[in-house]
């Protein structure tokens, strides 16, 4: 499907002999060196050479282009100029492409040289399109070069004004907190009636000894005592019951969540 003409037909005016250096018509050696230095890579050089064929890139002669490129590199080499490796790689690849294109079709490898040539042409087209686009972009009326914004705008200022919020309670409470924080504080540790864990263990195990039946935990508490002592005793007795159960001296049972807790002695 490849268009053979694309590869093989060289436009007359684009022979390598007529070409004497891209961009500048001068063929002197210094110019050649400088120009090689100025290319943005081998594809860029190829594109410029292709443009010299003065045809649409779709109709470019790849063979002629290969000749131009190789000729260019050979001239540079003849002048013993430093040539970056990627230019030489491209030259070698193009030489390979050229020989493959000239081979009879049935001896061609895969990918076919026509495919490689077409891909090269597509790449050149794309780079060419971007180079043209860049030129058109740069030629637009550019801000700061062709068009200008106002030289001395007054500027829009948005002043944020804070409306502070605080109420009477906040004020008075804050003062209270300050005084509280900085006043010398006398700590009075009140003597609260408590039942220690040891006392609870003694008490619960002693009481377990008198019965074999299930007893509710609360029945272990001292009956007529300060309510605060009873709260402490309930907590200690519960822990004591757990401890006795752990030691295998009691078993515990609870019918439902938050229901009364029962315990009884484990028979030895």
């Amino acid at each position, binding site marked *: 499907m490849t268009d053979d003409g694309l590869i093989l037909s060289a436009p007359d005016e684009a022979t390598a002999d007529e070409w004497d250096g891209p961009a500048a018509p001068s063929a002197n050696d210094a110019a050649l060196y400088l120009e090689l230095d100025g290319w943005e890579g081998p594809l860029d050089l190829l594109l410029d050479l292709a443009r010299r064929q003065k045809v649409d890139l779709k109709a470019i002669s790849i063979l002629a282009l290969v000749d131009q490129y190789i000729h260019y590199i050979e001239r540079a080499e003849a002048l013993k100029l430093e040539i970056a490796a990627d230019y030489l790689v491209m030259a070698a690849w193009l030489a390979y492409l050229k020989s493959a294109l000239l081979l009879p079709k049935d001896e061609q490898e895969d990918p076919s040289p026509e495919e490689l040539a077409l891909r090269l042409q597509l790449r050149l087209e794309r780079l060419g399109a971007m180079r043209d686009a860049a030129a058109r972009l740069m030629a637009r009326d550019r801000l700061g070069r062709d068009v*200008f*914004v*106002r*030289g*001395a705008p*007054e*500027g*829009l*200022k*948005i*002043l*944020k*004004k*804070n*409306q*502070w*919020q*605080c*109420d*009477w309670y*906040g*004020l*008075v*409470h*804050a*003062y*209270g*907190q*300050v*005084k*509280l*924080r*900085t006043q010398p*504080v006398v*700590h009075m540790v*009140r003597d609260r009636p408590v039942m220690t864990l040891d006392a609870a263990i003694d008490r619960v195990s002693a009481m377990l000894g008198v019965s074999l039946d299930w007893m509710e935990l*609360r029945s272990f*508490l001292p*009956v007529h005592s300060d*309510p*605060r002592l*009873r*709260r402490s005793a*309930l907590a200690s007795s519960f822990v004591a019951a757990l401890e006795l159960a752990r030691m295998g001296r009691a078993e515990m049972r609870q019918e439902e969540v938050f229901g009364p807790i029962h315990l009884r002695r484990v028979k030895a």
Partner: protein
Amino acid sequence: MEAPDDLVRAVEATLFAAEAPMTAEEISAHLEGAEVRGPLAELQATYALRGVHLVERGKRWQFQTAPDMAHLLRREKEQLRRLSRAATEVLAIVAYHEPVSRAEIEGIRGVQTSAGTLDVLMEAGWVRVEGRREVPGRPVIYATTPDFLSHFGLKSRRDLPGIDELKAAGLLDPVDEAYDVAIGSDTAHEPEPAEPDADED
């Protein structure tokens, strides 16, 4: 609107892009010696009705926002903000102890007060500098403003509750005292039917 001629447009563009007001001579020099007084007068008349005016100040010409649009250049945006705890404390201290220096505020608070805190209170219009204390170093002293009284609904500073009243209201109770009161009232009122002692009794 009829199309202005090119010289008028050139003067317009030149003044628009200029970074400083320009005299007629400067504009003229810029435009290859063209006579610009006519165009300037025409532009001035054209813009007179617009949101932007062409004005001459001391022989220099410039565009500027129309005076009745000047308010657009500076817009105030109010935002409600709660006073921080630090600022509230400082405000309270100023109110209870005024006039008071920053060192005294810090002494009462027991912590350093950042410079921004008093600024906030002054921005809010509640605190002002009252003067300097005639002691070595002449520290600035702060006091509250009439705005402070009206904002907090006070007739005078004497309306602020005293320490004793704060105590009575529970605002000065130390934390563990408050806890004991809470515990005591629990037992007194038996508010929790699940309490074992409540069941038992």
